[in-house]
């Protein structure tokens, strides 16, 4: 690779603090496909095969345990409604970085954007697998068929728009950067000429990229609100849209922390406890706000005592609440926020609690008729696994090919040298901070 003759760019700092994570660097010392990737690929192929069979076989019956009562199986309720919360890092961390000025969060932004794209993408695949009559699906894009009063319509339109327009746009710089390095001089010149113009659209597109998911993440809560008495009173609430939205932010932070740390573990990257501790602090504050709203809502509706009645709903409520409450309290302490093991465990626990909160009203505490039960069938479970495996597989491939996982600038210089100042790939926008949009 021909590296232009350049001087290193100074390491970014924020109020005098030098951060270890300074820029995205591809994972370079491991093969693209490992044994783990092949195992994941196996799950992906099984899931894809079953999904294709289901779509072309036409019937849901043999492939799922859904009934007229439980018309929403795990593809919708888990892969879409629950896992897109984990994919809300782009929104949660993004708002913290761009709106509230946590500039050092930009170092983890590419990880957040990539995971969001993958979770949303597979979530949409989950819906596609689930749609009863896929050959009619194209009607959804015809405006004269729209019911604009419907939250389901809002989700249907906004979720793919967010995934395929906004998230792809936000992930664009990562791809263009690779093009700049790998492409011919002509491509480089073309990128260097056009990218300042494209950058001018950033504020508008990025702002919209925060508004759109806020709309559909709260609409997911509204969907369960519309189910009325079918949802157990511990979860059914007029606050559901708000609680779903805030929980999405929390899950987004938790997912970014946990995925980053797991990636550092797998691909041998140093941690940056300053950034991680700050992510954990924001997550814990959000969680405390969420818990206050949740408890106030339960108390206001007079059902708080049912959370302690000892039946299975109260057990689910307590497990879920503890999984959310414990990390929020532990991570209030500065000392604990500096301990990698604690931060990792607490982030995973928060994510599990958040997923439980998002998943429970859709299935576990969803009682459409007395004695009605639902448990996913084997093909459903395998497709669900396949979608999750697809997320992990694509993630592991992407971080090896693109500059996503954060690392010190020196790691980059050691591998590639530096980009010429003022070019697209110099990693330095006008304000002197590393750019990790």
């Amino acid at each position, binding site marked *: 690779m021909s590296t232009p003759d350049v001087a290193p760019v100074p390491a970014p700092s924020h109020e005098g603090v030098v951060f270890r994570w300074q820029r995205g660097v591809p994972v370079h010392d491991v093969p693209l496909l490992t044994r783990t990737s092949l195992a994941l690929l196996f799950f992906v192929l099984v899931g894809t095969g079953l999904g294709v069979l289901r779509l072309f076989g036409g019937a849901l019956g043999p492939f799922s345990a859904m009934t007229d009562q439980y018309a929403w199986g795990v593809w919708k309720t888990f892969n879409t409604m629950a896992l897109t919360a984990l994919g809300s890092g782009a929104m949660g961390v993004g708002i913290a970085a761009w709106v509230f000025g946590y500039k050092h969060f930009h170092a983890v932004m590419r990880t957040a954007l990539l995971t969001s794209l993958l979770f949303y993408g597979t979530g949409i695949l989950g819906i596609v697998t689930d749609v009863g009559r896929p050959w009619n699906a194209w009607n959804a894009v015809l405006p004269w068929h729209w019911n604009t009063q419907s939250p389901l319509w809002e989700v249907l339109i906004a979720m793919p728009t967010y995934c395929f327009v906004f998230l792809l746009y936000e992930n664009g710089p990562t791809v263009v950067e690779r093009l700049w390095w790998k492409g011919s001089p002509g491509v480089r010149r073309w990128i260097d000429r056009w990218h300042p113009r494209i950058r001018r659209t950033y504020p508008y597109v990025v702002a919209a990229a925060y508004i759109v998911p806020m709309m559909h993440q709260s609409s997911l809560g509204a969907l369960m609100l519309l189910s009325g008495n079918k949802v157990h009173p511990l979860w059914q609430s007029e606050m559901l849209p708000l609680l779903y939205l805030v929980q999405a932010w929390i899950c987004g932070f938790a997912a970014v922390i946990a995925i980053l740390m797991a990636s550092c573990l797998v691909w041998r990257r140093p941690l940056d406890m300053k950034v991680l501790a700050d992510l954990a602090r924001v997550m814990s504050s959000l969680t405390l706000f969420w818990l206050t709203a949740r408890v106030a809502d339960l108390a206001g509706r007079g059902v708080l005592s049912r959370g302690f009645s000892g039946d299975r709903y109260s057990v689910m409520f307590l497990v879920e609440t503890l999984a959310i409450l414990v990390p929020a309290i532990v991570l209030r302490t500065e000392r604990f926020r500096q301990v990698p*093991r604690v931060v990792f465990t607490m982030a995973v626990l928060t994510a599990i609690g958040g997923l439980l909160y998002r998943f429970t009203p859709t299935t576990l505490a969803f009682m459409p008729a007395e004695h009605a039960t639902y448990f996913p*069938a084997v093909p459903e*479970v395998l497709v669900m696994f396949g979608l999750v495996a697809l997320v992990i597989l694509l993630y592991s491939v992407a971080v090896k090919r693109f500059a996503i996982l954060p690392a010190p600038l020196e*790691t980059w210089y050691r*591998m590639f040298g530096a980009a010429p100042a003022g070019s697209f790939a110099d990693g330095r926008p006008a304000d002197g901070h590393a750019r990790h949009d």
Partner: protein
Amino acid sequence: MARPANDTIGERLRRCGVDRREFLGFVGRLAVAAPAALALTRHLALDAIAGEIEKARRPSVVWLHFQDCTGCSETLLRTSKPDLAELILHLVSLDYHETVMAASGKQAEAALHDAMTNEAGRFVLVVEGSIPTKERGHYMRLAGRPALEVLQDVAAKAAAVIAIGSCASWGGLPSAPPNPTGAVGVDSIVKDKPIVNIPGCPPNPYTFLGVVLQFATAGTLPALDRERRPLFAYDRTIHEHCPRRAHFDAGRFARQFGDDGHRHGWCLYQLGCKGPVTHAGCSTRHFNEVPDAWPIGIGAPCVGCTERDVAFKVPMFDRAPVVRPTPPDTYPPVVAPTGTVDPLATGLVGLAVGAVVGGTYVASKRFSKVAGDESVPGRKDDPPPRDGDGGPPLGGKGV
């Protein structure tokens, strides 16, 4: 009021000249009107049930009134199958009951004393009304003594206590806030006797009869729920078997007393009916053997009198929460498909959950426990890098 020893129900009937045909007829009415009585025996034929009842010794019953309206006694008086005469003369030996006994004054007190002495440890104490506890119980006196003391004395010698009505069960109307007399139910005072609560304002007399007959024939008390109510009569909510339930499911509600919906017999939920939260059998066993003689049947919302926390505690016209999930807003399927749980799917989900939990644990073990340790996780042999050092060099060969 001494009575012959071993006075069984059968002997008593024969001595009173009640022939067997009449008795079988009575048992038949009992079995139809009070299905609870069928709990007495596993036999299905009438004469077999009758045989079981005949053999039972007539239980001695002492009935005490406290702060009550005598409504529970009244409901017993209004019952015709069996009527009160049959009940107290043939089935039980009602030794003391202030309202219906002929005796008064010293004679009445003597009856109470006799029952307590001769039948000590064997008689059933029925309590009607709540017991005042404030000011050492002086809000109510019985034969010159505070009610509290009378109850403690009589209950000490009883075999079992039946609290009839909401007042005796947990205070009822007299205990409504601000509860000036400190009224409580029997189970707040008597702690060492088996107590059966038969709440209601008034309760269904057949529930009472079923409990007493079970005690007489089998010597046992029925299975109870958390509020000590017999499960056979209180295991379901009014809402579950309400004759107006179809209107609830279809969304047809009376909105105002006397409006069109009310006149058409639509659901009273919006008027404050507490049926969805009230456990009682009223919706299936109406009162006084008159069809539809029960609150909802005559267009009055249920007030939840069999629930400790509902009647006299929450406003009568407030809407109750619908505790149990309701069917869908379209017609429910006639044959509701129930889901199946595939063992293989369960196993797969279990494996996945285990993998997440186990993976998290294994991964967390490899992270450092040292605060601020930013070295490469999972590698203990590397020296901690200096600030700004990129850790071990990564052998890059170009993108």
